[in-house]
């Protein structure tokens, strides 16, 4: 493999609801920052859009920082398909030889990226939170990819010196997009692609909407969150949450044990939240959980263990049993609401 043949930073742009999704716009912004940091490389930012979308949609990549947009278009390509997207992206890799490919670590991106990386036998780093060019060699295009591991307890910086492209998926919500500028100049390379030769065995039967009960805890003002210390008693949190107007959150430990649904999970592998008040109950405070809630405006931690790590990020810590305190809190608020004056 002649590594010198490979150049530029390619960003896979994921379409959702007829827009380029924020997670991809963030990657375009990060790619712009990277190329500006190392002008000697003379790298371009290339956005790759795949599907039956309009040219207008594909051009958005240019408004958010792409110097060139490759639009792989086919009228029949109405839905994502692992096999078709992989094959089409492989053609771009063979033809255009990207040095770096950034893919958002969304459900779609995490389905597609490993498939592409395995097909072209290159390395892939998952869920990166920081990207830099080799800090020790100012001419180098070697990407230093930093990511959390072991539940966020440890961070690792990963490199791929031997294979190209250098591929990584990037955690949504971490990188910053640049400001939209519809007057930016960029090259628009629309390619009508054939998909008839691609054997896609998976068939989409239907799309189901999530029921209305599905929660979006990222929009809540107050989150009352429980960990493994709550055990099978999340109903205690739910009653209290109802009384104080909160949504119920949970640590990964609680979700993995099946105490509550994945929609409620806060943390590195769950949702990143920043409510006005975050009340952590029976949560020990693994770094992976802290990563998802430490930016909350005000944090109240309740834990039996005075040494629990959660206290280190709390504005106020209460040493005690949440299962004792929460029903008393529910009662307290109820009495307050029912007061005669």
């Amino acid at each position: 493999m002649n590594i010198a043949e490979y150049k530029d930073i390619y960003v896979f742009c994921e379409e959702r609801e007829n827009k380029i999704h924020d997670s991809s716009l963030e990657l375009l912004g990060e790619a712009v920052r990277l190329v500006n940091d190392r002008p000697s490389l003379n790298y371009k930012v290339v956005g790759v859009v795949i599907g039956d979308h309009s040219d207008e949609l594909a051009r958005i990549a240019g408004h958010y920082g792409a110097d060139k947009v490759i639009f792989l278009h086919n009228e029949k390509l109405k839905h994502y398909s692992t096999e078709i997207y992989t094959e089409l992206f492989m053609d771009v890799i063979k033809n255009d030889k990207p040095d770096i490919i950034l893919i958002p670590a969304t459900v779609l991106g995490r389905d597609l990226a490993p498939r592409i990386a395995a097909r072209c036998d290159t390395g892939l780093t998952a869920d990166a939170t920081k990207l830099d060019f080799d800090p020790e060699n100012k001419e180098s295009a070697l990407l230093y990819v930093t990511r959390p591991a072991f539940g966020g307890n440890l961070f690792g910086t990963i490199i791929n010196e031997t294979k190209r492209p250098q591929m990584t998926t990037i955690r949504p919500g971490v990188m910053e997009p640049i400001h939209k500028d519809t007057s930016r100049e960029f090259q628009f390379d629309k390619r009508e692609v054939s998909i008839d030769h691609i054997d896609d065995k998976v068939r989409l039967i239907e799309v189901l909407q999530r029921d209305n009960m599905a929660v979006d805890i990222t929009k809540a003002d107050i989150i009352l969150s429980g960990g493994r210390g709550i055990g099978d008693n999340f109903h205690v949190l739910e009653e209290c949450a109802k009384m104080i107007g909160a949504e119920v959150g949970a640590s990964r430990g609680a979700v993995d044990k099946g105490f509550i649904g994945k929609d409620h999970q806060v943390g590195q592998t769950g949702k990143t939240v920043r409510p006005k008040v975050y009340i952590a109950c029976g949560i020990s405070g693994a770094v992976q959980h802290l990563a998802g809630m430490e930016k909350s405006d005000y944090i109240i931690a309740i834990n039996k263990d005075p040494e629990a790590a959660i206290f280190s990020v709390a504005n106020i810590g209460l040493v005690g049993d949440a299962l004792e305190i929460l029903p008393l809190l529910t009662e307290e608020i109820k009495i307050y609401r029912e007061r005669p004056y």
Partner: protein
Amino acid sequence: MNILVLLKQVPDTTEMKIDKEKGTLIREGVPTITNPDDLAGMEVALRLKDQYGAKVTAVTMGPPQAENMLRELYAMGADDAVLLTDRKFSGADTWATSNTLAAYIKQVDFDLIIAGRQAIDGDTAQVGPQTAEKLGLPQISYIDDVLEFSKEKIVVKKALENNYEVLECPLPCVITTLSTIAKPRYMRVMGISHAFEKDVTIKTFDDLNIDPAIIGLKGSPTKVKKTFTKEVHSNSDILNLDGKASARKVAEILMDMNFIGK
């Protein structure tokens, strides 16, 4: 029907301790568990077995002590268990791991492969799809439910960020399961006694027809340049109050912030 379930023995990351000086993990004394997404995948396989009849084989790559996990899976109801273990396999990234798993799987008969979506130590979600690619099989990842299963095909519900997709795929194929798909059953008493009578099949480098250049640490394109930990600073007020006083404290905070109206 033959169902292969790919699993990993992982350290319980909620019990993890860090050496802050060295920026490395302290592995001693950390309990190991079967990765939750994988264990849910095993449960799915056992339910398919209960309902349609199938032979369920647990497959893992890992150090010799991963045999303990396989014994537990026997006790749950697995019919067969295979451990791919060799010093040459160790230190593998996801690509090299997939090459190793695929090399073994190519030697056996199967109709369906179930892998957990991701492992809690690495959180990559890459080994399932990469193994599928190395076997030339279609994949469906992030499965939340199996709706239909027959000799010919599987119909599953995939969980995306804002909705679900119902997808159909002919067998053989690879699916990756979320931990929420099924609550794993307990080990059976009969199973536990059987678990120690049954043999775990051990496969080493010499048993797999594989190029040493594509496995283990040496064969891995990605390398860990360095590891480090994040500092957490404390600025909190920690109070030791009784239950009633604690509840009042929280109530006061919420009222002060005007969250609690009449």
